[in-house]
């Protein structure tokens, strides 16, 4: 943490009484302009999206979010099925990915024999670099038929009494999207968690072992509590990625055709991102285009909230661990 502040204030400040030189002035102005460009861009981003959504905002108000209709013919639009689809897919992906990711991270930081460590790490990093369109291609052509014929029926017969696990008729459905998103956020959560676990001071782990703790007791009593905040931040970052992903989801989620919210995970659905990706060209009225921008606005707000939340946690953890290290 202290490395962040190597540029001390004395090095930063010009010598007292020295005239500001032209070159210094120019560099400072040009670099400052670059910062202004970024800030203006972010402001413009929010402004343009809000401006585009204004027609829909004034027509439907906040009720847009809870309306379960998307009807271009009668000019009635609502975001409920897409908000629902986004929530179900991203939370579902997080629920499946988190234990797996923590397992990988613990395996890589505590258990893995030297020979396995390098290939597994390389594989995880490869997956993190995979473009979402490639993952979507794989999800549609390889994963969806496999899930439809083997996994979906098995889940239905075992857990069919829960309405989430109904009959599956199409390979492209919400559940397939959940699995694809799981694979997408798995490397994010696991690599951040691994870094955190490796960052736990060896003295603390050795102290636990010296007191007679088994390896699991050491992990549960020292490693996990120490990394807890960071793991939460990693989960939130993964959630943000899943919420914002549009392309891979569009490829495998199937698309809503008239039907609204369905609790059956094996039905096709739509998310905020996939709806925008599918419809942005086909919008037949100004109100529909504006409603799509309303969807984008909801997505923007969600991602801002999620990311700010993650940053707050990261900064708090960094401060606390800085205090611990000192």
């Amino acid at each position, binding site marked *: 943490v202290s490395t962040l502040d190597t540029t001390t204030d004395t090095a930063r400040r010009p010598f007292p009484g020295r005239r500001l030189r032209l070159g210094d002035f120019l560099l400072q102005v040009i670099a400052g302009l670059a910062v202004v460009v970024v800030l203006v861009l*972010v402001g413009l981003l929010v402004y343009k999206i809000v401006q585009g959504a204004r027609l829909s905002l004034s027509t439907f108000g906040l009720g847009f979010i809870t309306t379960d209709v998307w009807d271009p013919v009668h000019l009635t639009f609502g975001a409920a099925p897409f908000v629902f689809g986004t929530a179900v897919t991203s939370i579902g992906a997080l629920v499946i990915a988190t234990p797996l990711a923590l397992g990988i991270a613990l395996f890589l930081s505590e258990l893995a024999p030297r020979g396995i460590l390098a290939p597994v790490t390389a594989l995880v990093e490869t997956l993190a670099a*995979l473009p979402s369109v490639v993952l979507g291609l794989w999800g549609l052509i390889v994963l969806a038929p496999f899930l439809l014929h083997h996994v979906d029926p098995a889940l239905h017969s075992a857990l069919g009494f829960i309405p989430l696990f109904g009959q599956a008729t199409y390979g492209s459905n919400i559940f397939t999207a959940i699995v694809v998103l799981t694979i997408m956020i798995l490397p994010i959560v696991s690599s951040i968690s691994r870094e955190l676990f490796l960052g736990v001071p060896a003295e603390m782990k050795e102290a636990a072992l010296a007191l007679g703790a088994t390896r699991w007791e050491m992990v549960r009593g020292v490693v996990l509590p120490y990394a807890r905040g960071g793991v939460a931040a990693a989960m939130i970052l993964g959630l943000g990625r899943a919420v914002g992903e549009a392309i891979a989801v569009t490829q495998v989620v199937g698309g809503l055709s008239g039907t609204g919210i369905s609790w059956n995970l094996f039905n096709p659905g739509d998310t905020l991102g996939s709806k925008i990706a599918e419809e*942005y060209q086909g919008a037949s009225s100004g109100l529909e285009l504006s409603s799509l921008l309303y969807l984008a606005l909801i997505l923007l707000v969600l991602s801002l909230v999620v990311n700010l939340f993650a940053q707050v946690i990261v900064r708090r953890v960094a401060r606390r661990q800085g205090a611990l290290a000192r």
Partner: protein
Amino acid sequence: VRRADVGSLQRRNDRLRRRRIVNRSMEAVAWLAAAIAVAILGVVVWSVARQGVSQLSWDFLTKPQNLYVPTAPQGLSNAFVGSLVIVGIATAMALPVGVLVAIYVNEFAPRLIRNFVSLVLDVLTGVPAIVLAFFVFYLIVVPTHHQSGLAASFALAIIILPLVARATIEVLTLVPNSLREAALGLGAPRWRTTLGVVLPQTIGGVLTAATLAVARAAGETAPVLILSSLVGAGTSWNPLHPLMSVPLAIFELTDQPDQLSHERAWAGAFVLVMFILVASLGARWLATRSRRKLGQATR
């Protein structure tokens, strides 16, 4: 007395055994989780490699798509060219601005502005690509009434910029202050110190970040889908028109119902993934090299 001792010893042994069993089973769970994950990841990587390699050919790399005769021998060269142009322009736009932002933040800005700009950069990194694409659609495509490769470049530049800026800030903080003080002490003005002494130290780190960001941008589909997808036939280098790109080609080919299109999608995916892997490996090589150099400078 002896009986009680034996009893408590027995209990202690039982508890120890139970703790060992719990430990063993949790270790097994971690192994299992890792195995499941590795299996999934392995299957993904393997199917891209297997399906992709079998479809690769010289024609695929050198011939453009033929939209009128889908069965004719053809490739994705128009998409390769388009991606090259779009990502190239995006990098040219984002790289200097990103580095300048980092210079301002690390060398000039007071602490408050520094924290604020870092936060803005972090938030910008988290904005979904499809929202950025839609923003640029409203900013450029709607007023000019037509899509263009340039619009897609602009959206990709917004994706690359915060990645480069954040990484450059981190490398700049690693440059030892003694270097700055030495340059200033020799009478160099601050701008020469920054541009001539501090910045050259960070070239490796900046290049690493730029390479990773470019690899990321090359795989982004949402911006090219929304901003540069109404593409004409044949290969075009003109960024003022919509240009085909590799992720868009994969996306559209996946959507087709026929086997032939899917095979081309796999081959395109393979080329894209290989490019990204080579770029990441190159970036890692650059990173280790520059870290070693920075390490020597510190000593």
